[in-house]
């Protein structure tokens, strides 16, 4: 259901496209100009899953995909972010040129950075409270983590440099790093998409080979290594810039289908052995030694392939014009996916708040469940308010302005 603003953009893009000589591979097919609801749907889903995964283990955690295979919500999120970023900013680059598109992307980077610092402040508030109120001798050692509160001068500066990142706050810095280097890559990929993807694969291989990494504070490296995760992001971009279309024959072949199914079953069985250790007897040691550890930091190939298999099956069995996409039941998910940065931040905040409430109320499984459901309701309600506001604001502003603003809001989101 494209909004008024979307249609304006579509019309403008068509006019612009007609006047511009298209370089090979740059063409954005007309069908793409309609909002791809599947992307919004799955990004919304990823946001919900990230929220649930950030709460302590509970009943709903068993519904999240990380328990059924190698990859998890992060992969979905980064891939779709790459896809939408290329789609939206690619359009801007086509209409307004490199400089304007780059400026837009950098503005987005700034928004994400501010959001990250905001979350860090909330985190500081939470753990400062825990530090002053909690003193259980059983966990005397674990409380050592709070030692950094004794050096706020160092800690806060390191946080602003994105080097000190508490647990659960790793995704936004990764996203900042990916977007920061996106303008030149987008420029290149709009001309030679395959060359761009090739460079990305090359960097990934170099990273795995030579252990490239960004340092973190107080020690260690970034939990999500941007040099490795860029592969997924730029693969998303490559798909948006025509790659998906060119792959459609491979995607629809039966061989691909069965390979995907077989791989997903293998991954499912492997994950099962983590939860039911008795099954470990049936897992050959050779396979174990080859597989483990499955490296999330450097986007292990097993994870990447698992995501590809999931995506291939999704594209196959969930067509773009699936009527369910417009059903009111999926509306909350789609709305969340359309305001991803805001909803992501709210999700992280709610996860902090939920943990806090659980700790204070010595929560059982029931409370856990209530918190998870309430969190999702709040996220959906907030998304609804955002889209209502966007509609109102769009009606008020000038036509051209609303079109520009829309590119930003839909803009690749976090």
């Amino acid at each position, binding site marked *: 259901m494209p909004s008024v603003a979307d249609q304006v953009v579509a019309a403008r893009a068509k006019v612009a496209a007609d006047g511009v000589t298209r370089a090979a591979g740059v063409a954005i097919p007309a069908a793409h100009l309609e909002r791809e609801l599947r992307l919004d749907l799955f990004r919304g889903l990823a946001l919900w899953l990230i929220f649930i995964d950030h709460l*302590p*283990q509970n009943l709903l955690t068993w519904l999240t995909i990380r328990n059924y295979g190698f990859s998890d919500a992060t992969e979905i999120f980064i891939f779709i972010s790459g896809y939408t970023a290329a789609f939206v900013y690619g359009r801007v680059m086509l209409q307004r040129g490199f400089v304007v598109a780059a400026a837009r992307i950098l503005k987005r980077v700034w928004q994400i950075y501010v959001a990250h610092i905001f979350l860090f402040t909330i*985190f500081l508030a*939470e*753990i400062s409270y*825990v530090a002053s*109120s*909690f*003193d*259980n*001798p*059983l*966990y*005397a*050692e*674990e*409380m*050592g*983590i*709070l030692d950094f509160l004794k050096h706020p001068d160092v800690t806060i500066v390191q946080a602003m440099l994105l080097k000190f990142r*508490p*647990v*659960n706050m790793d995704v936004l810095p990764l996203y900042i790093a990916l977007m920061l280097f996106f303008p030149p890559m987008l420029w290149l990929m709009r001309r030679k998409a395959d060359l761009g993807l090739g460079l990305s694969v090359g960097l990934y291989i170099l990273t795995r080979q030579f252990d490239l990494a960004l340092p*973190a504070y*107080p*020690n*260690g*490296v970034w*939990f999500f290594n941007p040099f490795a995760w860029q592969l997924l992001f730029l693969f998303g971009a490559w798909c948006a810039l025509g790659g998906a279309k060119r792959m459609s024959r491979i995607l629809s072949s039966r061989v691909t289908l069965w390979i995907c199914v077989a791989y997903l079953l293998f991954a499912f069985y492997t994950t099962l052995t983590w939860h039911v*250790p*008795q099954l470990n*007897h049936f897992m050959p*040691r050779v396979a*174990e*030694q080859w597989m*483990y*550890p499955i490296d*999330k*930091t450097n986007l292990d190939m097993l994870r990447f392939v698992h995501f590809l298999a999931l995506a291939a099956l999704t594209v196959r069995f969930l067509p773009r014009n699936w009527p369910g996409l417009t059903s009111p039941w999926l509306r909350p998910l789609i709305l969340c996916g359309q305001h991803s940065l805001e909803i992501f931040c709210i999700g992280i905040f709610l996860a*902090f708040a939920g*943990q806090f*409430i*659980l*700790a*204070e*109320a*010595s*929560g*059982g*499984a*029931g*409370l856990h469940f*209530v*918190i998870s459901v*309430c969190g999702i*309701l*709040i996220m959906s*309600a*907030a998304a609804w*308010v955002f889209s209502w506001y966007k509609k109102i604001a769009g009606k008020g502003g000038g036509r051209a302005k609303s079109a520009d603003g829309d590119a930003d809001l839909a803009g690749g989101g976090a």
Partner: protein
Amino acid sequence: MRAGWMSVLFVMAGLSASALARADDPPQSCDVPAYLLTSDSPLPRVSAAIKAGGPLAILVVGSRSSTIAGAEGEAYPARLQAMLREKLPGIAVSVSMELAPRKTAADVAPGLGKLAQAKKPTLVVWQTGTVDAIRSVDVDSFHDALDQGVTALQNAGADVVLMNMQYSPRTETMVSPTSYIDNMRVVAQQHDVPLFDRFAIMNRWNETGEFDLFSAVRGVGLAKRVHDCLGRALSAFVIDTAHVNPAELGTRRR
């Protein structure tokens, strides 16, 4: 948004009130599923020592979570000694403790070989990972340190049990133990050494309501009860993994 929050808090308040109304803790059953109390990897020297009638000397190398400040005699190493003596009558069991507070695996590993040669324990329980996770030490160097430490202990002629960190719901937002736990499992598999999964066991207790590990109590009571259960579980783990049947042992010696 605001209204949403208020309603959440309202629901929370109601639920927490009902939680508080529950009766005081029943006596601990320390229930642990059987698969957490055994391992496929052997403890040959422990088996041999018990079959030979002792002595069984165990050395626990660990960080601060292996003790309770002010109640050292009731921490799990002491409880392990008491339980083993009870279960293995007539065998001289001694458990000693080498505390390495605020030390990472890489800090501890180089000294392990010498320590084992000096003390000549039958079994070394190496509890580690907590400090590494807190400081988010690079997992590869954590893996290498574990590797080095276990090799040194085995070369010094001791059986080894690796013990991972405590399950600590309060610090879940701040410490991420998963990759360290995974690496300990990997090293244990590579060296064919049993892993005592303290994290999973405590997680289980928290889930079943055996212990409320969220609790903000300041007293030492909860720590004592948890360590008692840990000592119990560890004694069962050692006996089962060493394939010793205490009942048989008892009748033979009587």
